């Protein structure tokens, strides 16, 4: 069973600070997706990383896929209260089926004004 561990589980920071959250696994994934989830709603896709070492930027968010495709990070620059939410990483199975995502438990980010 593939597992994705996300850290930290909770993060509370002040507006304007930078932060990094991590997504780690002992398994290789063919791709990794980052989602943001608001309470009572579905996950909203932010980005997909596919190639080992890949870096993608989405405004103030920077996503990186590890060289070995086992881990990823999300860095937010100058966080804003609107960034508050649950950030989930989800890996697409590399060795077997391509049909399912394995999710981490998420990092709950609170950005205080």
């Amino acid at each position, binding site marked *: 069973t593939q597992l994705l561990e996300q850290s930290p589980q909770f993060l509370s920071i002040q507006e304007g600070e930078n932060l990094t959250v991590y997504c780690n696994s002992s398994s290789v994934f063919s791709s990794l997706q980052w989602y943001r989830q608001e309470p009572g709603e579905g996950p909203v896709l932010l980005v997909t990383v596919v190639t080992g070492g890949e870096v993608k930027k989405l405004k103030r968010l920077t996503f990186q896929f590890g060289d070995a495709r086992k881990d990823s990070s999300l860095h937010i620059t100058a966080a804003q209260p609107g960034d508050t939410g649950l950030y989930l990483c989800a890996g697409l199975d590399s060795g077997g*089926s391509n049909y399912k995502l394995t999710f981490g438990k998420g990092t709950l980010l609170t950005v205080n004004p």
Partner: protein
Amino acid sequence: EPEVTQTPSHQVTQMGQEVILRCVPISNHLYFYWYRQILGQKVEFLVSFYNNEISEKSEIFDDQFSVERPDGSNFTLKIRSTKLEDSAMYFCASSKGQALEAFFGQGTRLTVV
């Protein structure tokens, strides 16, 4: 922007009753999925569906569950004889290809009493 839509948003049912959760995937997508999220826990894969048949299912997806694409637009999850532990958010998702990004609906909150 195209989106996955789910109905109802909230369903309350008595233990032992059957429920049908409905989803309309994005129109040009070919792969469909159901995931669930028990309160406070990870998003978990239930089943994937392609070409009118199940592609993969998890150990959670036992004989109590079934999926169907009754027409060209709807994708349904039926839960027979619901149990208290079936209470969860159920998310439908769809993707264009098997290894491509999955887009999630807003979810149906199922409460079994």
